[in-house]
């Protein structure tokens, strides 16, 4: 009979129930969308902040020390990193968080009587990792702020092998009146070499006076085959906290459990530490300008989204509570009758609560999927990528909806129970 009554209420009063379900659905879709977006906004904004370039630089341990101490300009005493170890960066614990990286080596060259810096690097290097993964990485991703004013980005993979390409800074190109497609002859330590200008870029910094060429070309020119002078790494990191700061100073000062927490969290310092572990004689340090700002911006964005989420949750909770209260109160006549014909308080509460809960569950389920849609709309329009749906949002939303519906209906039910059937039935 109980179920017949509930069935009756649903099949024959579906409009009323629909309205409650709709409100619950709206509320829960909002909650689902906002919680999902909030959970993902960190990662998304983090990705966006990658446009600022690398947040970690790796240099050989004692390059400049040796260089300056003995004031030797000769390259032989300078320390270098090994190119063969580069792939190791993608094998560390936080490998998944390493978005891009590029090695650098530079050499001096002469052009038109002027000493210039020729930098060798990867542009869009195709890398096959020992893990079987493949990856395209290089300065194309690490110098997003470069404007290509002439020609196009140098591509290692599509460049015709017969000539050697080079990219030239805008200021330098202007001084030397170089244009894309021109051939330039650079005189270096190991003789003259012809390059074809693939593109001219404007960077707004000292790179405007430099030239960039593929790694292996510059290594050959400077007789440093297989060696690198620095690596720039762009990694997704977690904003530093006290533990990270303490660890950055000296990982040895941590207790074992602190160490594990630190090592297994994507702090900038722990990623640096892990890179040092896989690259021989290297020092990896955070680029403060980028790493610190990222932390601050991420934190603010997170907090902002959290508060907006709370705001919208409170709003939808109030909306649901309102309607549930109104709809329960509306039924005072029916409840009065049921009491008059002998229904106990328990039986009435069970009936009303089951109906409301059932409506709530239907609404919440519909709302969850609608919220999924909303989250995707937000993800696609704002970040151009989908928002990852976290499974744990389901129980959160379910608990929230149940709590809100319960809280919304309890005062009304209490009021109904205190009704005297005589009062209701005589229409007072």
């Amino acid at each position, binding site marked *: 009979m109980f179920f017949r009554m509930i069935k009756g209420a649903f099949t024959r009063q579906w409009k009323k129930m629909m309205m409650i379900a709709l409100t619950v659905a709206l*509320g829960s879709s909002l909650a689902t969308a906002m919680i999902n*977006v909030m959970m993902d906004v960190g990662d998304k904004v983090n990705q966006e902040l990658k446009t600022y370039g690398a947040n970690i*630089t790796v240099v050989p341990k004692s390059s400049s020390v040796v260089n300056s101490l003995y004031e030797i300009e000769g390259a032989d005493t300078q320390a270098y990193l090994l190119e063969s170890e580069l792939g190791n960066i993608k094998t560390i614990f936080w490998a998944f968080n390493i978005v891009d990286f590029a090695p650098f080596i530079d050499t001096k060259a002469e052009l038109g009587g002027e000493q210039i810096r020729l930098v060798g690097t990867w542009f869009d290097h195709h890398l096959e990792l020992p893990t079987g993964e493949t990856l395209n990485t290089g300065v194309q991703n690490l110098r997003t*702020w470069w404007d290509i004013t002439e020609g196009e980005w140098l591509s290692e993979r599509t460049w015709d092998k017969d000539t050697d390409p080079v990219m030239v800074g805008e200021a330098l190109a202007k001084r030397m009146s170089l244009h894309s497609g021109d051939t330039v002859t650079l005189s270096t330590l190991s003789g003259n070499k012809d390059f074809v200008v693939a593109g001219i870029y404007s*960077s707004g910094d000292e790179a405007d006076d430099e030239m960039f060429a593929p790694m292996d070309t510059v290594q050959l020119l400077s007789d440093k085959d297989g060696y690198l002078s620095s690596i720039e790494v762009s990694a997704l990191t977690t904003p530093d906290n006290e533990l990270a700061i303490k660890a950055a100073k000296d990982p040895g000062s941590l207790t074992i459990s602190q160490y594990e927490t630190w090592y297994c969290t994507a702090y900038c310092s722990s990623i640096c530490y892990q890179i040092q572990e896989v690259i021989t004689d290297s020092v990896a340090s955070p680029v403060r*300008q980028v790493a610190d700002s990222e932390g601050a*911006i991420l934190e603010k964005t997170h907090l902002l989204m959290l508060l907006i989420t709370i*705001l919208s949750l409170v709003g939808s909770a109030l*909306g649901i509570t*309102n309607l549930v209260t109104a709809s329960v109160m509306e039924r005072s006549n029916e409840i009065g009758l049921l009491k008059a014909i002998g229904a106990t308080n328990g039986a009435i509460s069970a009936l009303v609560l089951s109906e409301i809960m059932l409506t709530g569950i239907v609404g919440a389920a519909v709302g969850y999927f609608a919220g999924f849609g909303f989250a995707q709309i937000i993800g696609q329009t704002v970040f151009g990528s989908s928002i990852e749906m976290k499974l744990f949002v389901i129980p959160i939303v379910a608990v929230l909806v149940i709590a809100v519906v319960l809280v919304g209906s309890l005062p009304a039910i209490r009021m109904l129970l205190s009704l005297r059937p005589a009062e209701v039935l005589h229409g007072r």
Partner: protein
Amino acid sequence: MVVALLAISVGAAILSGLVTIYYDVPRQMGAQFRNYGANMILVSSGTDTEFDLDAVQDAVSLISGDELVGVTPYRYETVKIHDQPVVAAGTDMNGARTTSPYWHIEGEWPAEGQALVGKTEAEHLGLKVGSTFNVTYSGEGDEEVTDDFGTDMTVSGILETGGSEEDYIYISLDELEEIAGDGSLDIAEVSVSAVKESLNDYADRINNADLGVSARLVKRVTSSESSVLTKLQALVLIVTIVVLVLTMICVATTMTAVVTERRREIGLRKALGASDGSIIGEFMGEGVMLGIIGGILGAVLGFVFAQFISMNVFSSSISFRPLLLPVTVIVSVAVTGLACLSPVRSAIDVDPALVLKGE
């Protein structure tokens, strides 16, 4: 009634709160982005005018005061410390704090007679916080050394940035002048809290003002900032729209429920001879009143909420937008009006006799 009013004010509060935040995000977040440091640099334009502090002041005065976060002049000279050549930068330490908030300093910012030493340089020279060193200036080329005995300075802090700053030592401009004599500035960093377009505008204005100073934007910072900021604002916008639409529907359903509950009253009025028009008019009037009261209440509440968020997230206050009050009120009136219309109409179609009999 209370239920309806509550629903409307909550809806209006969310509307005004989120819109306020939406408009304030670029300003507030922009301030956060100043963590990235200077986004404009001033250099000598190569004319005869000397590039000095006055020229920098003149150039900076073209930038609106509340958008200017900080300005720091730099003069680089090669000096010798323990007979090693070192690049010394003379600067204004207070300026450096604002334009380079990302500098990590182990120790203290320098006072008089003190210097900030880059981490790499400190390692070469074996300097620690508190060490004393002697600076001499060898002059450019073959010039005579201006001060035979040099100047003694203490290290107040070691600078760590992960960038080229680690290769320099930083002292105040006055002290660099004492050591190396008069000289012009090399560069001035300016940090401006503004979007890319107005930055370009400022740069053009400075370049056209013929101050002997040319302004250049730090592309890495400006272009990245505008791309990230656009995304963030779009995020808040979309979220605002989604929340608004859902809230409005919530308000509308609540209003519908409230009006539907009053069918009996509508039936009674009809039975008493009220015309359909007058009933609609009365109910709509009530709806509009509710919309106005709820709207005003909500606008105020929303501002309080936005203020709360701003204080908590950005620790700075938000300015009240007077225009938002009428907009909130109009939107809530429109929503309540629309929400009342259809249930009132359907209630009017009902036979009054049936309604009064308690159907």
